[in-house]
C-alpha cells in the first residue's frame, strides 16, 4: 500500500518532465498508476470480501505517537476501485480532451488519485486528515487551472475556503473523538466506540467537515461553482472521487457512531433535504454540466443519508448506490465533455439532434442515464429497490414513513432531471450545432462506454455487487425482516410499485415542465450568502487593521507593555503568593551598588548628550558587575566588566559620527505621561515579580547534580563546566548569534559607505566628490588604493622600525602620544598572555573562552586607539571573518566529532598525559570548544572594530555626514587623506 502511494507521488513528480518528450502519450502513462491500483486491489479482493483485511504501518515519529497506519477492508476496497477505476478512465479520456498544460494537469490528477487512495486506506484519524486536505489542495489547483479567469480563481478560492474550513472543524472533531476513545486508530475506535461525554460534540464537528466536503446543503455552493474546471476534472473530483470523501467518512464512522445522539438526525435530515432541494435545482439548470452538478449534490445527499443511517439494509443500499453513482455520474460528465468539445456548447437550449449525430455516445449516455433514473436491470435499479425497502420497512429508523415519502419525492425528481438531461443533450431535430459538430474518435467515447457498461454489468451480475455490499454491511445486525438480499426481481412487492411510481411521476413532471424551466420556482441562493460572508470578513479585517495599525512604534510598545502588566500582573495578584520574610540585603555593599545603579540609570533618562548617555549606561553596567561579584558570581562579574568596556568602545566609536545631542523630541505632554505611567507600572510589576521569584524556590536546584558531575569534565569551575560542557549546545547557539550580530553590524555600517553612498544617497554625498583623487593622493596608496574592501590595511614591514607601533607612523604626528605607544607596545603581549591564561585556566578558576576572547579583543582595541587602523592591520594579518569563522568551525567541529567516534554530540572526555618533565597533565576535550569560543569572540571584536572603527573613519574621509560634528576624528581622517 505504501508502495502504491509512493508510486503516485513519484509519477506526479516526473510526469511534467516526460510530457515534453512523449506528448499526449503522457496520459496513457499516467493512467497506468490508477489501473495498477485497480489490479492490485482486485488481487486482494477475495480475502477482504470474506472479512479479512490487510494492514501496513510506517513509524514516522513513534515517540509522538505518529505512525502512518494503512488498512484495506471492504469499504476501502470499494472506494479504491471507484477512485482508481474512474481515475484511470478519466486519464485515458483526457488524452483527447486536454490540449493545454497536459503535463502539469496529468501530474495533479495522479497526485490527487494518490491522495484519495491514501484517504480511503488511512487507519489513523490524523493520516486521514492529511490526505483529506491534500485532496482539497489538489482540487484547488485543478479548478484554478492557470487562474487566468476571474471566475476560475473565485471558484477555486470558494472550494478551498469551504472545504478547508470544514476540514479544520473536522480536525477538531477528530481530536475530541480520539481523546474520548483514547486512540486515534480508526479500527480501534470502530471496535470499541467511545460513548457519552464530548462524543456528541465530536460527532457534530466531524459531520460538518464531511458535509462541507460532500457539498451538503447549505455548504454545497462551491460544487456548482467548481464546474468552471475542465470537464474531466469535474467528472473525477467533483462527481466520482473527492466529494465522496465526506460520504466515505460517514460510512466509515457510522457503525461506531450512528447510535450517538445527533448523528441520525443530522445525516438523515441534511442528506434527504439536500437530495430533494438539489434535484429541484437541477430541473432549472440549462447548462448540462450544472444540471449534473446539482444532480451530484442531490445524489450525495442520498448517499449520506443511506450510509449514515446505520442499518444493514441502508448500508447495502448505500454501497450499491455509491458504486452506481460513481459509474453513471462520471460517464455522464464525460459525455457532456465530449458534447462540449465537439459542438462547442453544452447549453440545452442550443444543443439539438446530437443523438443522431453521435449514436454511440447517445447509446452509452442513455445507458448511464437509465442507471441514474433507476431502470432495471441496471445497478441504479438495484440500489433504488434496496433503499426503498430499507426505509419502507426500516422500523428501526425514526419516522421512517415520512422519510420514505421524502426519499421517493427525491427519487421522482431524479427521474425527471435524468430524462431532462437525456432529452436536452441528445433530443430534438438535427440543427446547426449538430451539423458543425465532428464525430468523436472511438477512443474518446470508450471511457464513457466502459463506465456506462459497468452499470449494466454490476446490475446483471448482482451476485458480485451483493458480495461487495454485504462485506461492508456485515458489521450491522440484520433487521427484523432478516438480511436483505439484492436481486433484480423480488416479486410484486410494494417496493416495486413505489419504484414504478417514481418513474411515472418523474416522466410526468418532465412533460409538464417541458422547456418552461423558468416555471420552476426559484430557491434561495446560497452563493450570495457565501459572497456576503467573504465580503464582511474582508471589511472586518480592514476595520481591525485601521483600528490597530497606527504605524507608531511607541504606541505598539505601549500596548504590548500594558498587556504585559495586565495579564501576567493579574495572574500574579490572583495567585497571592506567600512571601518569605524580607531580607534587606545579603551583603552590606549591595545597597551602595544599588544606589549607583539606580542613580546612573535615572540620569540616562535626563541626559541630552548621546555620549553621556552611553557613559552612564556603562556606569550602570560596572555597578551591576559589582553586584555580581558580591553575590558570588566572579565569572559573571569578569565578563560583565569586559563586555561593558567593549560596549563603551564600540558605541563611542559609532557616536563620533553622530550628532552629540539627541534629536529634539516632539512628544506631546499627554503621550509623555502615558509613557511614564506604563513604564512605571511595568517596573512595579517586575519588582513584585522579582520579590516573588527570589523566594519562590522550593525544590533543590538542578545544578546540585552538576557539582557531582564536574569530575567527568575535569573542571573545578562549575559555571565554566556548564558553559562548555553540560549546556554546550546553548553556547554554540549563542556564539553563532554573536557572529551574526557582528556580521550584521558590519554590513549596516559599510553598505552605502564609500561606494554605495554614491549610488544611494546623492544629497549626502556632496563631500564625496574629492574622494577618488583624495584616495589617490594618500600616503597609503599601496595600502588604501588597491586594497580589497573589508580587510585591514596591510602593514609595511619594509619601513624602518623607528616607532613603537608598526602602523602608528600613519597617524598624523599631532595625535600621536609616545607615552601611549610605549605603554601599548609593552602591554600588548602581556594582555594577550593574560587572555590565554584566562582561556586555559577557565576550567579551574573564573575565566574561560568568553573572558579570554574579550581581553584579547581589548588588546586589539588598544592597538587601534593608539596606533590607528594601519597598526591594527599589522597586529592581525588575517581577516576578522576568518578568525571568527574558524572559531565557529572549531566549536562546531568539537561538537560533532564525538558523533564520528560513536558518541553523542558535544560529548567530552578528559585525556591524561604523563610527559616526562611536567608530570601529569589533564586535558579536557571541552577546552577545544572553549578555544573555539575564544577565537570567535576575538573575530567578532575585530569585525566590530573594523566596522565601527576603520570603516567609519574611512566613511568620514569620503563623505561627511550631513551635520557631522567636527570632532577630532574627522580631522584625523582629513589629515590621513593628505600626502605625508
Amino acid at each position, binding site marked *: 500500500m505504501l508502495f502504491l502511494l509512493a508510486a503516485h507521488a513519484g509519477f506526479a513528480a516526473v510526469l511534467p518532465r516526460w510530457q515534453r518528450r512523449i506528448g499526449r502519450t503522457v496520459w496513457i502513462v499516467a493512467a497506468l498508476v490508477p489501473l495498477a491500483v485497480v489490479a492490485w486491489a482486485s488481487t486482494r479482493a477475495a480475502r477482504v470480501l470474506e472479512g479479512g483485511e490487510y494492514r501496513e504501518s510506517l513509524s514516522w515519529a513513534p515517540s509522538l505517537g505518529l505512525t502512518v497506519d494503512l488498512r484495506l477492508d471492504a469499504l476501502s476496497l470499494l472506494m479504491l476501485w471507484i477512485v482508481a477505476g474512474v481515475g484511470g478512465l478519466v486519464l485515458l479520456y483526457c488524452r483527447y480532451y486536454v490540449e493545454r498544460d497536459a503535463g502539469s494537469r496529468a501530474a495533479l490528477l495522479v497526485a490527487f488519485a494518490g491522495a484519495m487512495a491514501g484517504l480511503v486506506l488511512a487507519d489513523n484519524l490524523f493520516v486521514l486528515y492529511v490526505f483529506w486536505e491534500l485532496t482539497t489542495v489538489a482540487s484547488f489547483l485543478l479548478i484554478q487551472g492557470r487562474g487566468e479567469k476571474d471566475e476560475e480563481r473565485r471558484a477555486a478560492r470558494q472550494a478551498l475556503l469551504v472545504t478547508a474550513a470544514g476540514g479544520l472543524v473536522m480536525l477538531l472533531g477528530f481530536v475530541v473523538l480520539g481523546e474520548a476513545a483514547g486512540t486515534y486508530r480508526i479500527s480501534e475506535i470502530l471496535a470499541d466506540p467511545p460513548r457519552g461525554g464530548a462524543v456528541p460534540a465530536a460527532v457534530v464537528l466531524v459531520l460538518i467537515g464531511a458535509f462541507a466536503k460532500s457539498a451538503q446543503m447549505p455548504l454545497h455552493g462551491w460544487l456548482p461553482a467548481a464546474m468552471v474546471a475542465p470537464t474531466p476534472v469535474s467528472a473525477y473530483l467533483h462527481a466520482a472521487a473527492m466529494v465522496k470523501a465526506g460520504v466515505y467518512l460517514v460510512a466509515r464512522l457510522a457503525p461506531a457512531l450512528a447510535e450517538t445522539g445527533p448523528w441520525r438526525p443530522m445525516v438523515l435530515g441534511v442528506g434527504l433535504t439536500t437530495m430533494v432541494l438539489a434535484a429541484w435545482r437541477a430541473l432549472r439548470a440549462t447548462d448540462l454540466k450544472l444540471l449534473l452538478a446539482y444532480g451530484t449534490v442531490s445524489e450525495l445527499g442520498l448517499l449520506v443519508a443511506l450510509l449514515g443511517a446505520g442499518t444493514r439494509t441502508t448500508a447495502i443500499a448505500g454501497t450499491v448506490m455509491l458504486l452506481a453513482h460513481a459509474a453513471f455520474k462520471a460517464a455522464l460528465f464525460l459525455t457532456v465533455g465530449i458534447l462540449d468539445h465537439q459542438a462547442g456548447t453544452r447549453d440545452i437550449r442550443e444543443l439539438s439532434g446530437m443523438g443522431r449525430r453521435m449514436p454511440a455516445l447517445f447509446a452509452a449516455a442513455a445507458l448511464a442515464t437509465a442507471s441514474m433514473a433507476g431502470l432495471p436491470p441496471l445497478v441504479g435499479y438495484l440500489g433504488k429497490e434496496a433503499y426503498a425497502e430499507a426505509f419502507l420497512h426500516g422500523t428501526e429508523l425514526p419516522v421512517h414513513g415520512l422519510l420514505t415519502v421524502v426519499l421517493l419525492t427525491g427519487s421522482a425528481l431524479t427521474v425527471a432531471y435524468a430524462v431532462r438531461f437525456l432529452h436536452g443533450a441528445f433530443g430534438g431535430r438535427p440543427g446547426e450545432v449538430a451539423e458543425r459538430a465532428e464525430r468523436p474518435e472511438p477512443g474518446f467515447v470508450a471511457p464513457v462506454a466502459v463506465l456506462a457498461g459497468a452499470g449494466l454489468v454490476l446490475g446483471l451480475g448482482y451476485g458480485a455487487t451483493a458480495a461487495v455490499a454485504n462485506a461492508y454491511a456485515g458489521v450491522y445486525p440484520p433487521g427484523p425482516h432478516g438480511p436483505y438480499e439484492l436481486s433484480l426481481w423480488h416479486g410484486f412487492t410494494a417496493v416495486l410499485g413505489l419504484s414504478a411510481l417514481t418513474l411515472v411521476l418523474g416522466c410526468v413532471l418532465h412533460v409538464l415542465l417541458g422547456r418552461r424551466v423558468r416555471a420552476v420556482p426559484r430557491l434561495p441562493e446560497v452563493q450570495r450568502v457565501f459572497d456576503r460572508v467573504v465580503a464582511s470578513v474582508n471589511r472586518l479585517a480592514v476595520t481591525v487593521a485601521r483600528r490597530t495599525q*497606527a504605524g507608531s512604534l511607541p504606541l505598539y510598545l505601549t500596548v504590548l507593555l500594558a498587556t504585559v502588566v495586565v495579564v501576567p500582573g493579574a495572574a500574579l495578584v490572583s495567585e497571592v503568593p506567600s512571601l518569605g520574610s524580607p531580607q534587606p540585603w545579603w551583603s552590606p555593599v549591595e545597597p551602595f551598588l544599588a544606589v549607583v545603579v539606580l542613580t546612573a540609570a535615572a540620569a540616562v*533618562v535626563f541626559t541630552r548628550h548621546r555620549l553621556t548617555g552611553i557613559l552612564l549606561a556603562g556606569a550602570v553596567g560596572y555597578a551591576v558587575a559589582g553586584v555580581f561579584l558580591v553575590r*558570588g558570581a566572579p565569572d559573571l562579574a569578569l565578563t560583565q566588566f569586559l563586555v561593558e568596556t567593549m560596549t563603551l568602545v564600540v558605541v563611542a566609536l559609532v557616536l563620533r559620527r553622530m550628532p552629540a545631542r539627541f534629536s529634539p523630541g516632539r512628544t506631546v505632554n499627554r503621550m509623555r505621561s502615558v509613557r511614564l505611567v506604563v513604564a512605571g507600572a511595568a517596573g512595579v510589576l517586575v519588582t513584585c515579580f522579582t520579590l516573588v521569584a527570589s523566594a519562590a524556590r522550593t525544590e533543590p*536546584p538542578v545544578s546540585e547534580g552538576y557539582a557531582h558531575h564536574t569530575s567527568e569534565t575535569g573542571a573545578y569551575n562549575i559555571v565554566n563546566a556548564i558553559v562548555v560542557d553540560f549546556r554546550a549546545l546553548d553556547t554554540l547557539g549563542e556564539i553563532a548569534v554573536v557572529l551574526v550580530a557582528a556580521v550584521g553590524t558590519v554590513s549596516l555600517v559599510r553598505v552605502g559607505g564609500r561606494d554605495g553612498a554614491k549610488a544611494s544617497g546623492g544629497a549626502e554625498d556632496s563631500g564625496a566628490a574629492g574622494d577618488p583623487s583624495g584616495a589617490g593622493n594618500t600616503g597609503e596608496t599601496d595600502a588604501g588604493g588597491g586594497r580589497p574592501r573589508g580587510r585591514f590595511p596591510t602593514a609595511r614591514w619594509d619601513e624602518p622600525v623607528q616607532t613603537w607601533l608598526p602602523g602608528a607612523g600613519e597617524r598624523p604626528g599631532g595625535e600621536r602620544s609616545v607615552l601611549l605607544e610605549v605603554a601599548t607596545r609593552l602591554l600588548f603581549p602581556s594582555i594577550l598572555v593574560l587572555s590565554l591564561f584566562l582561556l586555559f585556566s577557565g576550567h579551574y578558576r573564573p575565566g574561560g573562552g568568553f573572558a579570554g576572547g574579550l581581553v584579547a579583543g581589548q588588546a586589539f582595541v588598544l592597538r587601534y586607539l593608539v596606533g590607528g587602523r594601519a597598526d591594527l592591520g599589522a597586529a592581525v594579518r588575517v581577516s576578522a571573518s576568518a578568525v571568527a569563522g574558524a572559531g565557529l568551525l572549531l566549536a562546531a567541529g568539537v561538537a560533532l566529532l564525538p558523533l564520528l567516534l560513536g558518541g553523542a554530540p558535544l560529548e567530552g572526555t578528559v585525556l591524561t598525559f604523563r610527559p616526562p618533565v611536567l608530570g601529569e597533565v589533564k586535558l579536557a576535550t571541552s577546552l577545544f570548544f572553549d578555544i573555539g569560543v575564544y577565537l570567535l569572540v576575538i573575530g567578532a571584536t575585530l569585525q566590530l572594530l573594523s566596522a565601527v572603527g576603520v570603516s567609519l573613519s574611512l566613511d568620514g574621509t569620503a563623505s561627511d555626514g550631513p551635520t557631522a560634528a567636527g570632532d577630532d576624528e574627522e580631522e584625523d581622517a582629513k589629515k590621513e587623506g593628505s600626502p605625508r
Partner: protein
Amino acid sequence: MNRIDVTMSLVVGGLFAIGFHLMLQRSLMRIVLGFVLLGHGTNLLLLVAGGTPGRSPVLDGEHGDATGTADPLPQAMALTSIVITFGLTAFLVALAYRSWRLSGHDEVRDDVEDRRIGTVRERDDTEPAPEPDRSTRVTTPGGDR
C-alpha cells in the same frame, strides 16, 4: 522558605522601568540605551531568581562538594545573556547610525504604509478577463442564476 530579596528586587524593577521608559521614546539611540539597561536588569533578575547567593561556584580541588555556593546554572545563563546583549547592542547602534546616515535623524517615525492598509476600503477585485481558453472551452456555470 527562602527570604525575599528586597534591594535587588527594587534594583531590577527600577532598571526595567527606566529601560521601558527609554524604549518608549522615538530616538533610536535612546531605545538602544533602554535596551542596554533592560539587559542589565534581566541579567540581575536571572541571578536573583536563582536564589540565595553564596560562595562562588568554584570547587577547591575537591569534586562534588558544592555546599554553600551560589547556584551556578543561572550564572551560566546570565553569562550567555551578557554576551548576546553585547552583540545586539552593537547591532542596534549600527542600525541607529544607519538611520541617521540615510535620513539625517535617528528617530522612529510613524509608518505611513501601516496606516494606509487600514484606509483601503474596498479592493478592486474585478480584473479584465483574458481571452476564453480554447482547450477547455468552459461556459459560465450558473446559467440559472
